[in-house]
């Protein structure tokens, strides 16, 4: 064997190892960073990087919740509706003008509990339809998206006669102003999801249900309960994302997070979570979120027009999906 071919084979082996590894998407993040840094003014500044990290927190929460659902072989399109409805409900509880508990010291804690409960309720409804009535997840969550986001708008209109609700208590807005507080909340929630998946009984059950619900049921896994649990958790993560968005934008609005749906699923799938269930990790999703956020921010700073950013995002999803096909082939081949 000649030297040259030995080197190319070696190069290929290294490339394969990178593509096949768990940290592949993290490497992609590194690539995106090094590509953007020299060309994009202000991209690598600590301030901007901080912005990226804080900015991606709602997406992180949504995608983490989505990962739990995807692992069971389902899909939750209703997360954005949960965000909007929680936002309206929270604001209606504590809002300055017409809020139920306006001015009361209990306003913020009660509002947060109400928001989480709203998310949990939407999730429970989805899960119940899917697990007990055996309706297809895609259709259930598609219709509940329509219903609950329509309901959020209707609710806001009924109560305050406007879509947005302002004058939220300062204590709540602090969540938006103090980045570390928001980051702490999101990171804690993500770590919780990671531990849940990797270390607990419920985590194993989520994977088992995703692999084969019939086998799982016969093996004593409470399949319906696990499924409902996944959707409830997804709804609650959406509510947490809603808390962060509502605080940062200082308004309760049914439209928060509406544009995020495809990013949410995209981040999870780019990270490597399968749409067919049984495969996925919270850490992968974190990488996927980081990657999408780096990309979005870098493209924004390049002063590209909005349409070019959209096109590039589509291209990136394609490339990531292609690389995933390659990765699966490698893993299967070895």
């Amino acid at each position, binding site marked *: 064997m000649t030297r040259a071919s030995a080197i190319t084979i070696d190069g290929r082996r290294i490339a394969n190892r990178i593509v096949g590894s768990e940290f592949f998407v993290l490497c992609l993040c590194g690539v995106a960073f090094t590509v953007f840094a020299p060309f994009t003014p202000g991209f690598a500044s600590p301030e901007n990087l901080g912005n990226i990290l804080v900015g991606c927190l709602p997406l992180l929460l949504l995608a983490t919740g989505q990962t739990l659902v995807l692992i069971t072989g389902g899909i939750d399109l209703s997360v954005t509706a949960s965000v909007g409805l929680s936002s309206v409900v929270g604001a209606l509880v504590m809002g300055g003008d017409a809020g139920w508990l306006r001015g009361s010291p209990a306003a913020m804690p009660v509002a947060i509990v109400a928001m989480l409960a709203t998310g949990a309720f939407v999730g429970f409804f989805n899960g119940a339809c899917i697990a007990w009535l055996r309706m297809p997840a895609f259709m259930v969550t598609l219709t509940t998206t329509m219903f609950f986001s329509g309901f959020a708008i209707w609710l806001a209109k009924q109560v305050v006669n406007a879509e947005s609700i302002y004058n939220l208590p300062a204590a709540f807005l602090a969540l938006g102003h103090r980045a570390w507080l928001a980051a702490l909340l999101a990171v804690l929630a993500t770590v919780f999801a990671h531990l849940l998946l990797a270390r*607990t009984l419920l985590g194993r059950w989520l994977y088992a249900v995703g692999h084969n619900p*019939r086998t799982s049921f*016969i093996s004593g896994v409470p399949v319906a309960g696990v499924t409902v649990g996944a959707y409830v958790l997804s709804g609650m993560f959406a509510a947490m994302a809603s808390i962060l968005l509502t605080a940062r934008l200082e308004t309760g609005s049914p439209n928060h997070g509406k544009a995020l749906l495809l990013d949410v699923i995209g981040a999870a799938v780019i990270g490597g979570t399968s749409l067919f269930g049984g495969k996925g990790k919270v850490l992968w999703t974190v990488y996927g979120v980081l990657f999408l956020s780096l990309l979005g921010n870098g493209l924004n700073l390049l002063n590209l027009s909005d349409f070019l950013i959209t096109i590039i995002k589509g291209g990136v999803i394609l490339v990531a999906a292609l690389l995933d096909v390659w990765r699966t082939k490698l893993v299967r081949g070895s």
Partner: protein
Amino acid sequence: MTTPSASNEQRAINDEPIVSFAAIERSFFGVKVLKGVSFEVGAGRVVGLVGENGAGKSTLMNLLGGVLQPDAGQLRANGRPYAPKNPNDARAVGIAFVHQELNLFPNLSIAENLFLTDFPLIGGGAPWIDRSALLARATALLHQVGLVHGPETLVERLPPGERQLVEIAKALGADARVIILDEPTTSLSSRECERLFALMRQLRERGIAMIYISHALGDVLRICDDLVVLRDGERVGGGEAKEFTHDRLVSLMVGRQLNQLYPERRASRQVGSDQAAKQAPEKSAAPRLAVRSLSQPGIVRDISFDLAAGEVLGISGLLGAGRSELARILFGLDPCVSGEVRLEGRRLDGGPRRRIERGLAFLTEDRRQEGLCMEASIADNIALVTLSAHGRTPARWLDFTGIKSAVSRMREAVRLSPKATDAQAVRTLSGGNQQKVVLGKWLLAEPKVLILDEPTRGIDVGAKFEIYQLIHQLADRGAGVLVISSEIEELIGICDRILVMRQGEITGEFRCDEFDREKILGAALHSSRA
């Protein structure tokens, strides 16, 4: 059995074999799986191809079907060299497959399935299906295989045996000269098997050659004219089927003298099952499992029996007699309107989860769909049932070292192939090893009662023996074991007592000193109690 004279004449007229393999070799990733295999298939002959899993049978058939290409050696078809590149090449020379997993589309009609790749079209080059021609041709084919259904019946409405016949009709429709039947009888009742064999004899009369692949050696000896035995990719024996006996076939297949197909049963068996109960390590007044007047309309009628500790109880009967349905009711998967089931004297209720906690375990008939998570790892599959023991509430941390040691203990106990790693996907294992994983999963839960539905279907001889041993070990530890099987010999070989079911009722009960193949079969076919 005598070879029909017609096919002998056929052979005399046309001595050229229809298909021949000469010194075929094939490797995967540097491992030789076929080492110079040669044999030929003559017109009007049924050639039985036997060997353990991994002997190279399916590789050989994939070469014939154009799915794979040989590394060395030559295939010939109809007297000409034959090097198929894809399944269509195989079809073109008249080779048709009837697979174990049927390749029919249940959402389409019988006629559409028969002519899926070459629909009769309305003349003039328009791609419109000529319905009347389609139906006429389909009806003719169905008549040939003896099916009475209308050609527009959806395949999903047919029982498995009739679907098998549709597959054969499909092969006939494609003017097949060679039909390869790969484990065609695994999901057939014995009556359906007889129908299939009768059809095969008819086809043989017409000069059609067949390659018959099966683990059911009794059937192979009965239906085949010639035999080819493969072991580790080599042809280790072959010739006319009458020169072989069951035992000789088995010893050729496994490469050593196999003294027994079934493990020695412990002494208690001779004394009878009541004695076995008394000798069991754990003494209890109530039987392990007591079933009383279990009924479900259309499924089972007034089923009552006891299963003692340490007993291996077989349930025999034809496919469709309600055996699997009974097992599913016992495990809480299907409902029943009346009757009750008691485990150690306490009533069993609820779904699988509650019953597993009480000590019930159920190895299902359908390994792929209900027994395993095919894409998950060996370790995850083995640990699945007992996970909750390692973390009582859903949120509790799992004890991973505990799980790991339990898995490796169980791997050893069921003698899972040591080549497989814990993290390997179950999908990559052979049928026998997959079944050991399912068994290991349940044994880890240390069940008080284990129900096994067709535990050795599609598994090679060596693995079968090991599974029998595991069943006996479990019974010796005091568990009650309920074995459902279509193979009467198997039940006679491993059970202490056999119940026979027919049309949802128990129609016969045999103690081990009364075991008799004919009587059991008689009870399965028509009531023997009367």
